[in-house]
């Protein structure tokens, strides 16, 4: 299973963290520090796997961002690379040619997408289309609620005028 997912920028800034195994806040900070140290110092041509504390870290760099997933030693590393790529493609479709800034300002959206892709450390959907559909359905629910709220506040505002 996937123990956690990290998105770390080339400067070592954390852009997304998702934990599927229990790590306390202190441990999380330590893990992030250790893994970014390991990952950022590896050359470009080397393999995408690093052994870390009895587990394996599979990472891939997309532009300025490192996507990294930590898996059990007996898991399929090549498949995890595919999962990462799958995630990136969905992000790309959702944001339309995603860049780091999208993920900074809309970090919650990235989390929502990840939640449609992975639960309990296991992948739940192999169709990008399905994920996109589910996300947009939920987004429109939020939009609808917002509109309703603003219309109500308009009514209240008018009524109290």
């Amino acid at each position, binding site marked *: 299973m996937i123990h956690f997912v990290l998105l770390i920028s080339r400067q070592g800034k954390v852009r997304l963290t998702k934990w599927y195994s229990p790590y306390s806040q202190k441990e999380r900070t330590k893990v992030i520090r250790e893994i970014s140290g390991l990952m950022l110092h590896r050359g470009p041509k*080397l393999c995408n796997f690093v052994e870390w504390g009895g587990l394996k870290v599979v990472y891939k760099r997309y532009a300025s961002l490192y996507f990294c997933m930590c898996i059990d030693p007996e898991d399929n590393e*090549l498949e995890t690379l*595919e999962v990462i790529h799958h995630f990136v493609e969905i992000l790309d479709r959702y944001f339309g040619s995603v860049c780091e800034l999208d993920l900074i300002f809309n970090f919650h959206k990235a989390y929502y997408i990840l939640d449609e892709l992975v639960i309990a450390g296991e992948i*739940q*959907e192999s*169709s990008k289309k*399905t994920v996109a559909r*589910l996300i947009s359905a939920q987004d429109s629910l939020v939009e609808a*609620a917002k509109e309703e709220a603003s219309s109500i506040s308009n009514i209240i505002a008018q009524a109290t005028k």
Partner: protein
Amino acid sequence: MNPFSSGTRLRDMIRAIRACKTAAEERAVVRKECAAIRASINENDQEYRHRNLAKLMFIHMLGYPTHFGQMECLKLIASAGFPEKRIGYLGLMLLLDERQEVLMLVTNSLKQDLNHTNQYIVGLALCALGNICSAEMARDLAPEVERLLQFRDPNIRKKAALCSIRIIKKVPDLAENFINPAAALLKEKHHGVLITGVQLCTDLCKVSSEALEHFRKKCTEVLVKTLKDVANSPYAPEYDVGGITDPFLHIRLLRFLRVLGQGDADASDSMNDILAQVATKTESNKNAGNAILYECVETIMSIEDNGGLRVLAINILGRFLANRDNNIRYVALNMLMKAISVDAQAVQRHRATILECVKDSDASIRKRALELVYLLINESNVKPLTKELIDYLEVSDQEFKGDLTAKICSIVEKFSPEKIWYIDQMLKVLSEAGNFVKDEVCHALIVVISNAPDLHGYTVRALYKAFQASSEQESLVRVAVWCIGEYGDMLVKNVGMLDVEDPITVTESDAVDVAEITIKRHTSDLTTKAMALIALLKLSSRFPSCSERIRDIIVQQKGSLVLELQQRSLEFNSILEKHRNIRSALVERMPVLDEATFSGRRAGSVPTTLSPSTMASVKVPNGVVKSAAAPLVDLLDLTSDDAPAPSSSSGDFLNDILGVDLSPASAHSGASQAAKNGTDVLMDILSLGTPPAQSSSSTPDIFSLSQNQKSPVASLDGLSTSSPVSARAASSQAASSIIDLLDGLGPSPPAPENNGPAYPSVVAFESSSLRVMFDFLKSPGNPQITVIKATFTNLSSNVYADFVFQAAVPKFLQLHLDPASGNTLPANSSGTVTQTLRVTNSQHGKLIRSMVKMFWRKAKSTTSHVNCEDDRFFWKD
């Protein structure tokens, strides 16, 4: 947006934080934001709760504490609208983990949301539950999740399936409830449901053998068919990855088949065809294809034997190994480790390629390859492979040297065909990467050297040459210094030349140089310096001509800031100056170190390393050991300003030399002695937990009385001071045979030794129920050893069954307990049990003291025991 609202928008806050130039600026911005959020929380501001939590999540990601927002998550989750719930659940998963008590409060909201009419809200609840549920929550909400496995919308079913995985991992007892609904998922067409269903079934098999049996019988056929359909499916754009339809489903199916096939020939048989098809037909030019092949190979290796398939699998691995992509090579090495148990011969064929991988520039690959090479080595190929590895050691990265060295040492030790080869290889490793060699490896090498008398000369010369070439390698220096100390004369006289050697000329002073350089080098650590000091002492008798120079070097260490070195230097100086007559006997060559004992000690190294800490911890409450001993030492040590008398036995040198890693010297040597004695008894008794003060107040008066009365040598009371301890110490002084080498009273010649019979027997303990007599015996040649025969007599009218006697001694003593003559004491003094104790006193002349514990069972009653701890058992040898 409400123009009167305080606080910034999320977007503005992120901008402000990004605009910060320094960490301090960022902290200031975050502090301000947090203060605003807190204020808003206190006002119970509902309108901005949503935005506040989003901000908190961002702040959390930057690593700042956000615990004050946890309750806000719960409030948002409890509110009615979807947007609030969405962000609330996200915050819950991000800010909390399953170990926080707050999480329990969300159980009820989760339960409501799992039953919600809006399927997206059900989805949110399932996702949160799957990611962070605790065991309690799993128990409470399992029925809901189980029901949702049959929900009409497939997107909820798949979420429920993954959520079930979490639940059965947290509470394996619940597994049986999920077997049937999980099996139903395997028949679905929706890929998401299939993937999660297969995953759920795989995890069920891990926690329940019942589930495994069920799926094996009912589902193998279905799964094989599903895999066949997926593998043969036409182009499906929705699931296509690099020309392959849904690799994720492929891989999960293969993994589940592996679980089913393992250990079951029929199931394995039914999947052979499809495995062969996947292994041959899958395109291997893209990562997705390789991922499937990799999984397929693992399944073939794991299921029951089918020769043809295995050949196919090994061939795929061979192709992988030759691939230029590092990722593929990495997984190939990984898989070959598993293949080695299946077909070692086939893996051996790839040896050359694997060896190349050890030298790869990629650390991950090197590590895998090294592990694999280690498994590949056997008696027949150890020589060439070790040569390759050692050659590579010269050019390898610093950070890889540690791993590589450890592996080479282990290989050399395990497979060495002959001693000279072992010594040669170890010397190469030591010269190349001595700083990475572990202490116990050096010890093992010294033991081997010591056991090869015909190679002593060769080794010491080789070490001398190696030292000249690379004197910065700590471990090499230690071994060299030890060998020169022991076999220095062979070095100088070229004793035991082998044909392969070139003769070298080394003078006596050259040999002394080695020790001098070592002791004076700043980078040498304490142990190395201490070893050099001992080597010098040894050389002083081997090379009489250098004796003066050696004394000078030793004397210089008197000023050492390290107590250990200072003390040793004083003692050695005293040996050199005042005890010339016994010096040569004292520094004789070490007896051959017993290989069996050593390997036994290494095997038991885990408890040995543990013991110092336990020793230290129990020593404090049991302070009696130390405090009581102090006056005794003073009494004996006439030059009381000197440090406590050091050991003079060669046995202790052995300890010093072998215990190379004893940087906190005293604590460790104590531990190793204890381990050597096998006196776990000591630990037992020390860790009894009975405070010594208490036990000594219970019986001591009767006891000390009885001893004073009955002890036939209690007449020397004239010397006694007010303290009863010293009184007793003095009382038993009759048979003194002190050879106190180092007490500074040089001229006094060693007292003649007393032989045996002069020791009267002593009533060591007597109560209304038990008497213990000690008879002493000294072996004439060895004044350090006292043999004590303990005789136990039962004075009560009850038979004592399971009688056990235990004794413990301070660490300057070594105790050996022979088996007792029996474990039943007949009543009314009608019979006795005897047991022999052998005590070796490394500081001969010091009082022997011990703690004794006895326990037994009276007929049908509970165990009674007597603890005689602290100062009760003293006598003098």
